[in-house]
């Protein structure tokens, strides 16, 4: 069997094994490849960074564990960025699988920054009904969420003494695994004129570019790459992000070596397989001609 036939009949398990090695190797022995930043992610960072200290940020963490590797690092970095700037964080989730992930992130990061629940941040929890919930938030946050995730009345919290609804928030960030970005644009950001950015899974990133192009989103962060970019921007601007605690920032950057290695392997495999395909086709044509 020659090389061309071998490649065209390659058992797919060998490709799986190569991918497994290329993912595991850089995670065990990091290659420290540079992570470049794109204008889309820089725009989110600049927008949050340019807000005056103590601004109110509404963060919607609309994802569940199936998108955790792509979006959870972004939530950690965004929370770290907000607390670094002393922003007040109002966080909620429209996905039933989201509360545990948000609770883990917000409790961990707020503890590292010494921020107080109810004064510096509030986790409103999960509520079903996407558009109805977002619409309700434009009328009243405490009316839509009378109690927070920990079952404490929101109306008495210091954080809600000056913020009544989404209209009073200075920025919205939707970290989304599904179509909730459109819901936040249509029912909160556009009608109430509150600027907004989105961090989404890589699968849905291409679909949100029209909103970025139209200026309805300040920026887009797509998948683990976008999260890694935000990590890099955060660590560049604030090198002592609580001593660079690994869980606060840098988790997505660690994965980018493996991502780059596998992408290179896939690109080379596609090129090699196509060359072999055309060589095999040419051979077949020649054989037919001689026969």
């Amino acid at each position, binding site marked *: 069997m020659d090389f061309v036939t071998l490649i065209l009949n390659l058992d797919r398990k060998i490709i799986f094994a190569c991918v497994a090695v290329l993912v*595991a190797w850089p*995670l065990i022995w990091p290659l420290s490849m540079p992570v470049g930043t794109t204008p889309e992610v820089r725009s989110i960072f600049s927008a949050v960074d340019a807000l005056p200290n103590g601004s109110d940020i509404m963060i919607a963490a609309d994802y569940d564990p199936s998108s955790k*590797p*792509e979006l959870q690092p972004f939530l950690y970095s965004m929370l770290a960025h907000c607390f670094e700037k002393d922003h007040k964080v109002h966080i909620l989730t429209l996905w039933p699988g989201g509360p545990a992930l948000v609770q883990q992130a917000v409790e961990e990061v707020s503890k590292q920054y010494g921020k107080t629940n109810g004064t510096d941040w509030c986790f409103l929890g999960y509520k*079903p009904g996407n558009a109805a919930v977002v619409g309700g938030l434009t009328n009243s946050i405490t009316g839509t969420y009378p109690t927070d995730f920990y079952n404490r009345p929101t109306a008495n919290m210091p954080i809600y003494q000056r913020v009544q609804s989404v209209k009073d928030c200075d920025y919205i960030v939707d970290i989304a695994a599904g179509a909730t970005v459109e819901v936040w644009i249509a029912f909160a950001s556009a009608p109430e004129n509150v600027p907004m950015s989105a961090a989404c899974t890589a699968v849905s990133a*291409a679909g949100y570019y029209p909103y970025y192009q139209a200026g309805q989103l300040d920026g887009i962060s797509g*998948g683990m790459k976008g999260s890694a970019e935000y990590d890099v921007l955060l660590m560049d601007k604030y090198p002592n992000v609580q001593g660079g605690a690994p869980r606060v920032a840098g988790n997505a950057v660690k994965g980018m070596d493996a*991502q780059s290695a596998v992408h290179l392997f896939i690109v080379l495999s596609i090129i090699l397989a196509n060359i072999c395909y055309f060589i095999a086709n040419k051979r077949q044509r020649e054989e037919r001609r001689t026969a």
Partner: protein
Amino acid sequence: MIPAGEVLGTWIAVGLTLMMFSFIYKDNPAFKFGEHLYLGISVGYYVNIQYWSTIYPLVFQAMKQQHNYWVLIPTILGIFILLRIIPSMSWLSRMAFALYIGGFAGYSLPLIVHSLLLPQLSQTLQPYSGGPGPVINQIIILVAVFSTLIYFFFSLEHRRTVGMISRLGIVFIMVSFGASFGYTVMARISLLIGRFQYIIESGHIMFPWTRS
């Protein structure tokens, strides 16, 4: 000292991950066990979340503590939706669906048009300005939107000029699919990286004596 519960939990999580990965080789009982366990736990978890975040506070608590019996109306309509599974009573679900669809359409249509459709239209047709780069981008967007719409316009036969424009539309659609596919590959690899990261980082929890 790592709590025994955390060590056991990590062993179970890593074991289940490897069970799911075993499908790459071939379908097997370990994969089936992991798959069914995942489905069962997911359903249980979501039912629990929905009950405690919706039904309990908005129905039972509202009636018991605030004596708000109006919540019975949407509750009954919600039960009507479930009656679809009983053929003789499935007609009742139509009332609930009609109310839900009608109400939601009325509420969301003006906002969707105002917030999504019109800004996208105005951006597509905005005046050319900002130097050669943005102008070229604007022209590409306009041509792409027009040719793609022509491709999906079926009242004219796709021949001659219309055929040429619709073929150009296919090119733009293919470019869009290519970008989405590239992103999809990236997303799937990210999920694999996430699992590998978990397995590698769990090493010192699974084998506590390796902790330095």
